[in-house]
């Protein structure tokens, strides 16, 4: 098989790359892998501190430009559960508690993108207890999409059975009482 980059040399490295749940097959020769890899290697050798302080430095001039002399400085971003400020998070590279994720949500995508090769969303394990509801909710959301499609295609019989299934799932979402 030929290398997909140069289309000249034999591909000797074969792998599947996954970004945000999308799988792509990649076939590269050693030379091209090295070339492609080099740009990415840079991000990998970053320490999380360098990375975050890099992002903050990038953040600041933007704010300075936007603010004129008479506007007040924006309220500092702080987690109201643990009291950690965004600034401190950037300095230490560590969240203070699980609520920090909500508190700093607007700032997190670029950080995660950089740290996790473009990925933003969890695709892995869902814990049985804290995630049981989530698992069902995930399915309900999927079924609702299917329902929409069926209605649009005027497949009413199919739509009806999907609707029943959604009802069943919604029943599961209710607390079970006895089993606790």
């Amino acid at each position, binding site marked *: 098989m030929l290398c997909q980059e140069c289309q000249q040399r034999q591909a000797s*490295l074969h*792998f*599947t*790359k*996954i*970004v*945000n*749940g999308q799988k792509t097959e990649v076939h*590269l020769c*050693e030379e091209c*892998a*090295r*070339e*492609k*890899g*080099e740009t*990415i*290697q840079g991000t*990998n050798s970053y320490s*999380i501190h360098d990375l*975050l302080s890099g992002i903050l430095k990038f953040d600041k001039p933007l704010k300075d430009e936007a603010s004129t002399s008479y506007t007040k400085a924006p309220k500092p971003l702080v987690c109201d*559960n*643990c009291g*950690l400020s965004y600034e401190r998070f950037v300095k*230490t*590279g*560590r*969240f*203070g*508690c*699980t609520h920090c*994720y909500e508190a700093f949500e607007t700032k*997190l995508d670029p*950080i*995660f993108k950089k*740290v*996790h*090769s*473009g*990925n*933003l*969303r*969890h*695709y*892995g*394990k*869902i*814990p*049985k*207890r*804290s*995630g049981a509801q*989530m698992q069902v*909710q*995930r399915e309900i959301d999927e079924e609702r999409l299917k329902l929409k499609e069926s209605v649009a295609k005027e497949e009413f019989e199919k739509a009806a059975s999907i609707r029943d299934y959604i009802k069943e799932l919604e029943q599961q979402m209710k607390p079970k009482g006895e089993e606790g």
Partner: protein
Amino acid sequence: MSLERFISNALSPWMKEESGAEKDIVLSTRIRFARNLNDYPFPIISSEHSAETLRSFVSKELTESSESFAGSLELLNMEDLSKNEKTMLVEKHLISPHLAERSTAGAVLLNEKESVSLMVNEEDHLRIQCLFPGFQPEEGLRFANELDDWVESKVTYAFDEKRGFLTSCPTNVGTGMRASVMMHLPALVMTKALNRFLPAINQLGFVVRGIYGEGSEALGNLFQISNQTTLGKSEEDIVEDLQGIVLQIIEQEHEARRSVLKTSRIQIEDRIFRSYGILSNSRIIETKEAAKRLSDVKLGIDLDLINDIKGNILNELMILMQPGFLQQYADQPLEAKERDVRRAALIRERMKIEPR
């Protein structure tokens, strides 16, 4: 204490198991999950009181349950251990240096085989670690998942639908999983071929680093390959990728071994047997040299040049010749120079006790 007994007490039982594939090149497999609880601040900013509350809650839940997972777990609180005891746990990879030196209300729960280690109040509330001999990422993940499910039946994890398992450091969020293997790659180092794969491996969201030694130096030609990306890929996909990468590296290492033997057999043999001679006879040896010589001897065993020593000598002695274990064996604190003498003696003795 005789060296034989010392070793059998010092090494974790899981290391001596026969199971595990590709053992000539892959020494061990490790799966680690970072997990946290919702109602407590992360250890990094936690008050002493809150850290202690968390520890007593978690350890009570995990040790007092009637049905225990992976045998009964023994709780070791960090403040109850001597400095050297902690050092030895670090040298055995059962706890992290962070837990040993900088944790508040830190603890570790260990099973009898020491294949399971649950760190409490490390960087995250819980670090669940499973160790396996040889190369067994799939079995490892299956076991680690079961253990994780069992722990989750006792304590409720912090989990977010979008971001997954919430962790103290942004580099762990999502699966919270670090899957890694320890590999011995002497021929790829010798032929300088390892560097050629690093970019491709990095591109896949994996990283290769030396296990012992600082900077770019990998003592004993021992490398750890682990995933860096924890978000956006399922645990199974990460492990599958790891498996693919490791199998390719194994193949390349075999290939490199064949090619160096073809071009310079006598030089390789000479190097291996010189190292064997030095380890069997030296009176003073530094860690760096010992690691290099041990790697040679291990290669000699793999190539069937040395037949009277067991293949696990490399990982065994890499642990035993660390300062904590040397001091334990000597039963006294040792200066660096004294350690070099003790190290040479321990290795010399170890080379003798082999089934003939």
